[in-house]
């Protein structure tokens, strides 16, 4: 009798332990699910912030285009008016041409902006330093840029020459110190360039290869491009 009772106890314990095992396994499975779901929530969160960025980007673009559409329609009306009245359109076209010459880089310009000066330190200033700086200035909204009084446009090249002894910008030879001027929102440009970690000034100072300084100015003067702006190879795509 005693033996039998003992065995019954063991059976009970075994059963209980078995049940516990099952429960534990289910709990673990549940836990796995929880973990998975937390991951999904994270992705969902990321998506949400991405969506918000996308929304504001499209909105900005829409507003820009809407403004330009209005301006274009106004211009069309003005031209139509001159056609109706049989007047000369020269005033209107003068205005348009003036504006586009400024954008192209055919005129000397001035405005508020910043001046960044690069000079040799432990190492030499290379063309890529200038390419990098120009790119960041454009990102920061610069409307006109020059390096040592040479205007920098979209098709301007910056090349190392003579075994890094000098640099050519738009086929003009320049030498250090390199004075890079930019017209635009001076506070915004200086903030972007000074950003800790990613800004040009901070990155350059951290690597301590070359010397860099930045000043904000109320009036920066940038000369017109020395390009002849002759179009040789491209032509307009005929509209259907």
């Amino acid at each position, binding site marked *: 009798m005693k033996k039998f009772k*003992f065995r019954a106890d063991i059976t009970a*314990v075994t059963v*209980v332990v078995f*049940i*516990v095992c099952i*429960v534990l396994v*289910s*709990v673990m499975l*549940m836990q796995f699910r*929880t973990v998975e*779901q937390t991951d*999904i*929530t994270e992705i*969902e969160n990321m*998506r*949400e912030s991405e*969506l*918000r960025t996308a*929304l504001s*980007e*499209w*909105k900005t*673009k*829409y507003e820009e*285009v809407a403004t*330009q*559409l209005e301006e274009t329609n106004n211009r*069309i009306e003005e*031209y*139509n008016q001159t*056609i109706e009245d049989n007047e*000369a359109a*020269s005033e209107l*076209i003068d205005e*348009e041409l003036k504006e*586009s010459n*400024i954008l*192209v*880089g055919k005129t*000397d*310009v001035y*405005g508020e902006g910043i001046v960044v000066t690069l000079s040799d330190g432990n190492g030499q200033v290379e063309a*890529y330093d200038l*390419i990098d700086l120009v*790119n*960041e200035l*454009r990102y920061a909204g610069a*409307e*006109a840029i020059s390096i040592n009084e040479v205007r920098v446009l*979209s*098709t301007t*090249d910056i090349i190392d020459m003579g075994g890094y002894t000098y640099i050519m910008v738009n086929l003009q030879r320049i030498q250090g110190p390199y004075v890079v001027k930019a017209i635009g*929102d001076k506070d915004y440009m200086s903030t972007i360039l000074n950003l800790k970690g990613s800004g040009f000034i901070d990155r350059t100072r951290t690597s301590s290869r070359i010397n860099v300084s930045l000043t904000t100015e109320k009036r920066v*003067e940038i000369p017109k491009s020395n390009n002849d702006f002759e*179009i*040789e190879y*491209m*032509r*307009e*795509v005929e509209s259907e």
Partner: protein
Amino acid sequence: MKKKQIAITLGIMCFLLTIALCVQIKTMNSANSTVSQSLADNELRDEVLRMKEKYDNAYRDLANAQKELEKVRQEATQNDSTAEAKEQALRENNMILGRTDVQGEGVEVILEDAASTSSSLNASDQIIHFSDIQLVVNELANAGAEAIEINGQRLVNTSSITCEGNIIRINGERIGTPFYIRAIGSQSRLYGALTRAGSILDAIAYYGNRAEVTKVDNIVISRYSGTLNYEYLKEDK
């Protein structure tokens, strides 16, 4: 003794079960929040799509309006030779600025991350960096390119190429590998600059990345999709 052991075992079990319950409740909570979250996301997604559609429509309208403007401008200036000359100058400016679709002879450069990554090499050497793109563009500019685009993004005077993490953006638009850089200009000069020994393409291809250039007889480059204007520039007289 045995009873005590059973009691302890049962006690532990109860404890575990309680924990399991707590976990389950938490799971339910997070599951609920996920559902509501994705609902909010869907609304947001709809909003983004609506805004994009609004932009697309406005952009199409703008393209039509610009065509019409060109037409009326031509009409208004046709009887006046000085005005006609100015109209021509304006057209050329717009081509240079990237306000018109342009075509002409040139080259196409394809840059693509290395297909198979060899672990013996630095992984960073086997992908295309934004600086590689900058250097190719610089080389094309040096060879006299008149118009350049990268994956459909026309480069204008204010275009920047940026990189956040592994996302490259041009004109604020995301682009990814493979990169197609097209340039209009003297085909032989552009091609020569990129195929000479020790060219930038050689350097990019060195670790297994794809870097090719082909001559194309008629490249079409679309206009810049953003707007060009200025706020801070003043003309110096």
